């Protein structure tokens, strides 16, 4: 069952540029466990969409199956949503994106949905550089079926039932880098300061923007010995940079220390402003990102922040060279070649 949130709000709540208050970006009441990391990510999505003054109908939200995939009902109720089948969100999003290139596509998935059953579709969406934001709410376990290890559970991580995971973890951010994803970031559900601007930047990126967000499962994977518990993540987190997203035509207000700061201009004129915490890392150098990721992992640390961005990204529409007008807006007159052309076709088969 789903329960609508009450619609009344304080009359003085601030409206954004397109006339919406923040609650306009919310969804129905979450049915996830109290304290679930996923709810924080939903909150960050709401915050990001409100702050960039997104018109809700300009975004379509899609998901697969699992706890994470339920979240699209908990944000952006004025956006069309699609809770599809397990692991198949990328293909639905691909078709939707082909139909209308003008919308923002936000895909939400989990570690089971992406790293196991949906691995094939995930890697091929990267390969095509589909223009979408792909968020994995990564908790290392299957919550809805009572806590089995997932493929992102770290080697040796202890489950709630007390067993050590004997399998190597699939590092989705590392995989995305390996596959040349054009935007790769990692964050933590508990770090909204980092996550909100990262979501905004991902939405501005014209291509596949992958966000691996560690999101602890309070019920099945928050125990001692788990490497995806709140306390473990907090103790082992490190970051590539202090990061902010500056929408087009807005002033940069934050001062970063000289020498370590960098500014990246995105396709739509918006900017990523960052202050590097890792000196040997460069956000536009994929190899430095891979090296940095491995170095952190070797020390048992979880590297977060923007890992890599390709500022010269050509998305699937660009690769296919489709018309600028969305395909779903083309009329019969524009699409049907007519009887005269068919007569010529017939003649060629006589």
């Amino acid at each position: 069952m789903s329960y609508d949130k009450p619609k009344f709000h304080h009359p003085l709540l601030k409206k954004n540029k397109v006339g919406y208050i923040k609650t306009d970006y919310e969804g129905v009441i979450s049915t996830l466990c109290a304290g679930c990391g996923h709810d924080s990510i939903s909150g960050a999505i709401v915050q990001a969409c409100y702050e960039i003054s997104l018109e809700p109908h300009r975004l379509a939200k899609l998901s697969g199956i699992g706890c994470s995939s339920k979240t699209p009902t908990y944000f952006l109720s004025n956006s069309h949503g699609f809770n599809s089948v397990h692991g198949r969100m990328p293909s639905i999003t691909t078709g939707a994106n082909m139909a209308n290139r003008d919308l923002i596509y936000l895909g939400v998935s989990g570690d089971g949905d992406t790293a196991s059953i949906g691995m094939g579709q995930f890697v091929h969406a990267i390969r095509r550089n589909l223009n979408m934001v792909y968020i994995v709410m990564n908790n290392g376990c299957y919550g809805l079926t009572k806590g089995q290890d997932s493929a992102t559970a770290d080697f040796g991580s202890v489950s709630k039932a007390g067993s050590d995971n004997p399998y190597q973890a699939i590092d989705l951010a590392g995989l995305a880098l390996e596959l040349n994803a054009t935007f790769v970031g990692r964050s933590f559900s508990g770090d909204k300061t980092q996550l909100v601007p990262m979501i905004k930047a991902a939405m501005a990126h014209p291509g596949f923007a992958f966000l691996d967000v560690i999101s602890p499962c309070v019920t099945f994977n928050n125990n001692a010995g788990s490497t995806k518990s709140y306390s473990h993540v907090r103790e082992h987190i490190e970051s590539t940079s202090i990061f902010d997203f500056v929408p087009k035509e807005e002033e940069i207000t934050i001062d970063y220390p000289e020498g370590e700061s960098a500014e990246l201009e995105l396709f739509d004129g918006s900017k990523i402003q960052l202050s590097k915490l890792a000196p040997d890392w460069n956000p536009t150098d994929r190899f430095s990102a891979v090296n940095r990721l491995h170095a952190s992992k070797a020390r048992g640390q979880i590297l977060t922040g923007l890992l890599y961005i390709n500022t010269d990204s050509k998305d699937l529409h660009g690769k296919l060279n489709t018309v600028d007008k969305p395909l779903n807006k083309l009329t019969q007159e524009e699409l049907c070649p007519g009887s005269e052309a068919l007569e010529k076709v017939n003649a060629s088969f006589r």
Partner: protein
Amino acid sequence: MKQEVVVNDLVIRFSNVNGTGSASANEMFAKSIFRMGIPVTPKNIFPSNIQGLPTWYEVRVSEKGYLGRRDGIDLLVGVNPQTLKRDINSIRPGGYFVYDSSKKLHEEYIRADINYIGIPMIQLAMEHYAKPRLQQLLKNIIYVGAVVTLLDIELEVVKQVIAEQFEKKPKLIPANYQALELGVNYVKENLEYPLNIRLKRIDAVGDSIMIDGNTACALGAIYAGATLMAWYPITPSTSVAKAFETYCKKMRIDAETGKKKYAFVQAEDELAAIGMVIGGNWNGARSFTATSGAGVSLMNEFIGLSYFAEIPVVLINVERGGPSTGMPTRTQQADIISSAYASHGDTKHVLLFPSTPAECFEHTVKCFDLADRLQTTIMLISDLDLGMNNHMSPPLKWDDSQKYDLGKVLSAEDLEEMTEPFGRYLDVDGDAIPYRTIPGTHPTLGSFFTRGTSHDEYAKYSELPEVYLRNVDRLAQKWDTAKTLVPAPEFYQEESKNSIGLIFFGTTVYAAVEAMMMLKEEGIQLDAMRVKAFPFHQEVEDFIAAHEQLIVVEQNRDAQFRTLLINELELNPARLLSVLNYDGTPITAHHITKHIKNQLTATV
């Protein structure tokens, strides 16, 4: 062996090695006969292989216009040593075997009751061409020249077809003409010609075209306004994708920008292919896929989503021999049950059964209208025979006044004018089909959450028994609406007069029509009906009710179509007999007549 002269009624078979360029030579041969105004049916019987395995090309010529396969080979051109024995044995007594006499034929291959015609094909090729690849390719044209002369086919017509074939590589034309002449001259100088079986120009093809069903499907999709094709390569459906791309490049490029008014996406597998189709249609762009039985098996989960979440899908299933990998390059009609009831839970899907390329075109267009109207999966059930072989077909037809039926979609203005809240799954007018909205339509109205989970009229998740029942019962009611929208069957008599009714569908029509004529000559009269769609139209029920005994002719082992009729129309199984053909080759009229006669004797 003096035989009477038979004109315009023969079966010629070419036995070749796959990958040696024989297919295009053989196709030019068949096209030349068509150009002489004679009805002709070529069948390419090929292996799942790129090079080396046996392949056959069978051409039936029938002045009466029978376009099914016919038993009994009159002339066989055998250039594949691997299959020599089997090929020679397949020729009817009194028939002709044309072979490469560059080497002497071993005694074990000699049959006393057939005629041997030796042409030194490879020897002639080696004498005239230096490159081995050229020798191999032009050897095919040499035998075409020989056979053309033996059968009295007009040489000028063949030359014209060759010239058209190499329109884009005109340098190749002289060499092909020379090879053709080598074959012609060898026959003229060394053999008696023409044979007693021969061809003569008539005017029996009218405005027909020679085209394969897959190309016609692709053109149908273009004319229907499809803007997304997502697909995964699988024989025998791949040529639908190839033709879609080829014709889109000619017909769907924006003149000003050179950009494409379509997206053509080769998916990573069939699951992703249909996922993309669902995403595209959900977002308001006509989208489709083409696959074969194995692909449909993989698509099952998504087909259920399309049914339950009510998202249009157009799926072209070009059936091949099953089960499992089965016979990927042989034909069957064996995906009837698995298509009709694809996916888990209570599901049913609309199927259309084209019989000709013209119908492949027309029905593909219809599939898009039905998918948008009914908001569900519509499958076009073709088969390898129809999809991949050239068929003589009525021309493809498009009426410029016909408008796409995009179904019940609300615009921003519609939403603003509504007085009641929008309910995605709310039946507001009794046809059990709800209105839908396309993402991005309106800033505050019309958004909803699409899901494969149980939902109420407003697309909200619910497992309440009464909510679930309202929804699935409405879907059942929508099925009744579908019955009124699908094409009616075709009948082969003005009114039912006989107690026995013949039922068939798809490519079985060619052999079935011929079988009826053969039976009529023997005094056995039958009524007949060709079913064009599932769910079964009311007229299908009426025909069945009007006949005591029915014979269902189909091309699978388990009589799947008969099962579907019995199940859906609650028929007494005893009323329905079967004629089945499932060896992977297209059914023949002889097969049908033989089995009908057996059945009738058994039941009398």
